[in-house]
């Protein structure tokens, strides 16, 4: 009846932890790269970046569409992107730009939910899980004390949910990567904490003997797992101070990049509202550490508050955001590559939609009919562009990509069968990982 509350097991799992040395060497000795289970890092561009000002430049378009930025050549002849992604341009051979994104929602929250879960948010009994929770469930490893889905930076709460997959897949949020993970250390000294946990166990044991409640046992298991993480060396993955200065620097844009932005007080305030300057880059570095430690899904959020939602001051803000993003992305790709992790780590760059071709009043508005996302690494065939928009970036003229097409492809790259069905409790019908009610056309040219 009460087997899971064996005191000995409890104390062993919580106190022993896993030594860092053993953990690192086991990773190093792990099977050849090809066999390493895949991981995914989602770079979430909150607010919806302009596709025209980033990865789908339109130099032929009229000035009010073309905007202020020039297009530059990349390492792949013929593929041109915004001048404010200079570092990433040199890594284009690893990436595919998807210029045919064409989706159904143009409200921030609805679109964010749609892109994260693959389903439109409707009233209805089903709480859909987001991509991170799906990957956590499908690819999570038992030997890792770290949660299988971790978010960095303040993200869209309502979309970062495990839905019907439940608490095991619920993301652990790192609010500020520079500060590290909040609440991972006990409030008092560790010895006192150990005593408290032992007393807690005694009380719980007596309660479970009296009440035998599965809910209570799950609570106790969750505590046990949280304590295991607190006592595990793996939590060092959250500590960026362990990273050499030269690696930390890789993720930081040149100082000149942010200087002009800082000149306009109002604008700087908007760009950085609620977010520490440069924290996105450090978040990407933490994502690399976490993936290295065996976490299958990390989502790094760029743009708390206003972010890429540039209804006003589009050009100075997109320039500053792009340069910060460029340094972080390029740093991440280079760093992963140098560690032999790029082929097993898929990086997804996307927001909830693109922005209008017409630039009015210095800003661009929401545009979901045609926009761009980027996939990097993960063993895909890089150096290509999929899909094409018209001269003004207003509609997709070649290979429109729906949300199910997109997420089905991401799942396939990660080795997940996107058609697999979950059976959520109380729903009464199976729910496929990706909505298959309409035909799903995978982007086979990437696989």
């Amino acid at each position, binding site marked *: 009846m009460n087997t899971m509350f064996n005191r000995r097991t409890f104390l062993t799992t919580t106190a022993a932890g896993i030594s860092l040395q053993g953990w690192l060497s086991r990773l190093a000795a792990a099977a050849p790269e090809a066999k390493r289970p895949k991981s995914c890092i989602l770079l979430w561009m909150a607010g919806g970046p302009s596709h025209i000002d980033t990865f789908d430049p339109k130099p032929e378009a009229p000035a009010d569409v073309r905007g202020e930025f020039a297009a530059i050549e990349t390492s792949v002849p013929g593929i041109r992107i915004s001048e404010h992604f200079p570092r990433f341009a040199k890594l284009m051979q690893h990436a595919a730009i998807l210029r045919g994104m064409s989706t159904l929602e143009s409200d921030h929250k609805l679109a964010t939910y749609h892109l994260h879960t693959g389903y439109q*948010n409707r009233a209805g009994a089903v709480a859909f899980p987001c991509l991170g929770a799906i990957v956590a469930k499908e690819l999570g490893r038992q030997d890792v004390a770290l949660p299988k889905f971790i978010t960095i930076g303040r993200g869209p709460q309502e979309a970062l949910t495990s839905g019907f997959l439940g608490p095991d897949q619920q993301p652990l949020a790192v609010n500020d990567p520079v500060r590290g993970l909040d609440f991972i250390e006990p409030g008092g000294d560790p010895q006192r904490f150990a005593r408290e946990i032992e007393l807690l166990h005694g009380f719980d044991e007596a309660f479970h003997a009296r009440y035998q409640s599965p809910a209570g046992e799950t*609570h106790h298991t*969750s505590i046990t797992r949280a304590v295991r993480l607190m006592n595990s060396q793996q939590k060092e993955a959250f500590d960026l101070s362990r990273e050499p200065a030269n690696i930390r620097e890789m993720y930081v844009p040149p100082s000149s990049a942010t200087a002009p932005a800082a000149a306009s007080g109002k604008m700087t305030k908007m760009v950085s509202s609620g977010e520490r300057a440069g924290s996105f880059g450090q978040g990407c570095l933490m994502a690399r550490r976490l993936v290295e430690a065996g976490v299958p899904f990390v989502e790094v959020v760029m743009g708390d508050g206003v972010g890429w939602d540039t209804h006003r001051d589009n050009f100075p803000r997109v320039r500053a955001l792009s340069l910060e993003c460029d340094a972080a992305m390029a740093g991440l790709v280079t760093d992963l590559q140098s560690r032999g992790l790029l082929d097993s780590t898929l990086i997804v760059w996307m927001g909830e939609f693109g922005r209008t071709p017409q630039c009015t009043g210095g800003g661009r508005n929401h545009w979901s009919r045609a926009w761009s996302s980027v996939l990097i690494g993960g063993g895909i065939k890089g150096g290509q562009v999929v899909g094409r928009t018209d001269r003004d970036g207003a509609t997709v003229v070649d290979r429109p990509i729906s949300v199910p097409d997109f997420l089905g492809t991401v799942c396939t790259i990660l080795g997940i069968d996107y058609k697999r069905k979950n059976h959520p409790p109380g729903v009464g019908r199976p729910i496929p990982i990706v909505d298959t009610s309409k035909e799903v056309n995978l982007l086979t040219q990437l696989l």
Partner: protein
Amino acid sequence: MPIKLVLSVLLLTVAAMAHAATVPAQNPERWQAAAILKYPALREQGTPLNKQFLAVVAAKRQSEPAFFHQPDWPIRAADLAVEEIKNAEAAAKEKTMADEQAAKAKGEAEANTVKAGIAAKQASTPDQRREMDRKDARRESDRSKTGWIAKFGAGEAAELAGLIDQQIEARLSKEGVRAAALADDAEFVRRIYLDLHGEVPPLEQVKRFLADPRPDKRARLIDSLLADARYGQSLADIWQGYLMSPLADDPTRRAERFRDWLAGQLNTRPWNEIATELIAGTGTMEDNPAVTYLIEGRLPRAVPDLTDLTSRYFLGIRLNCAQCHDHPFVKWKQEEFWGMAAFFTQIQTPKRAKQVYEKGVIDDPKLTLANLKDAGVPDGFIQSAPAFLGGKGLSPATSTITHRAALAQWMTTPENRWFARATVNRTWWRLMGRGIVRPVDDMHEANEPSHPQLLELLARKFAESGFDLKFLTRAIVLSRAYQRTSQAGELADRQAELFGRMSIKVLSAGQLYDSLETISGPAAKVTGIDVRQGARWEFTQFFGDSGDPEPTAYRRGIPHLLRQMNSGQFTGSGFDGLVTRLNSPANRPVEETVSDLFLTILSRPPTGNEVRMAKPYVNQSGSATGGLRELAWVLVMTSEFSLNH
């Protein structure tokens, strides 16, 4: 709205007075808000409570400036004001009672219509009777506010509780399963507070209840909890979660306004009237918070979403599958979904998202499903005239009212078989942890209720009562079925299925927050917890569940437990205060303080074994207060604290 809110005036006055004395410790706005949450009458200027409150503040300023050092002084002041009003009322009543008794002595027998209630009244002492009369007076004041008069009182509720038990016990004996014993008083007091007020009972209440020798003390407690405004507030908290999308714009402010409105309604009006306000309301959210449901139920495709929400929460039916195709297992056809959807089309605006916030809900007869075609919906909007479930269309008699008003009228007639059953099943599900029909909102022919006669009985009585939710709730919680223990025993699972044993529920995020606040005072400011939208809102978003989680399912993992254990949001300085309060005088025996900690956090005294574990623990800690604080921390981390058992 007839009641003009003068919250800000009151707050300014209070703030000014408090400032004159001394600035209260932390977060004064929060605590004034908390006092108003506890006593909504505070926000209306000129109410007896409001006047008394200001009088208390003025008196304390003269006599006890240190009073304002307490972080929760506004609540304490409000408590004192309430106490003084009660005393004055009691004195007045006593006089009336004496007169009445003199009259009775002359031989006038009271005509008894309310059976059990009157029986209890006859058996009680004058003291108890006085208390009961005060409850009646309170009901009186509720009536005068809304014009609604409850048809059924405590007697009818007790009678229905008896019928519930007859049905459940007959079934148990038929299946050869013995019912579990009744819960002890400690189990009961914690359960009833969590279920009716959404928080654990305060220490004094636990002590008073456990020490109360009167045999009918459970019924008395139920009455007083139902009469307290907190009942409607905690129920409103739940319904606001059902009826407002988490994706709503500006959720906190709108949710708060909507919740306040719901609380007032749930405290004073029957469910059919509330449902009508929600479905047929017009105007802006500022003028008529009821329309928050129509505007923020779902964004921005209101028509299909309102159809689904309305059928699930008010009728206990899942129509949403039939939006795109005929339901595979159930009789619902696509035409039924769109027939219901057609009732909501008149409030849709082509550019709804922007206009509806400014202009509010307005009916435009020109709008039909045909001109609202939405490519985002699979197969688009299917053209249909409004048709009630079952196929009937609008009758000429309803031609003078809006489509939604006609829908509300049809839904809330006593003859509508879905409306009462849905509400009964949801109320039962919430209180008992398990629906008579499961899942709670999926009622159809192929999904048999576990107790069909019980469901029919409750639905019939609920309709007869005039859809009085308090009556329904009172009847359920008065039943033995509700008052049984949840402790393990033989055939425990089978017992729970047959309602012969209480199911163990999990504290919702709101219950967790409010309980922690009851125990340790206001949430502390903590790095890493973003309270820009309000501490309680943030907490319920973080710990909450989307949708309708089963009340018995535990859905928290590593992120939640790390925060609960290590954030110190409640267990930091709040626990210092708790321990200091309980651990005085300084030479108080440690057993007594330990016992009070158990009573505060788990609403029960410790067992002998627990004292044997706790005492040496406290003694071995560096200091007694340190040890007691750690003990308090351990107690809020227990499985028992996370559960409503």
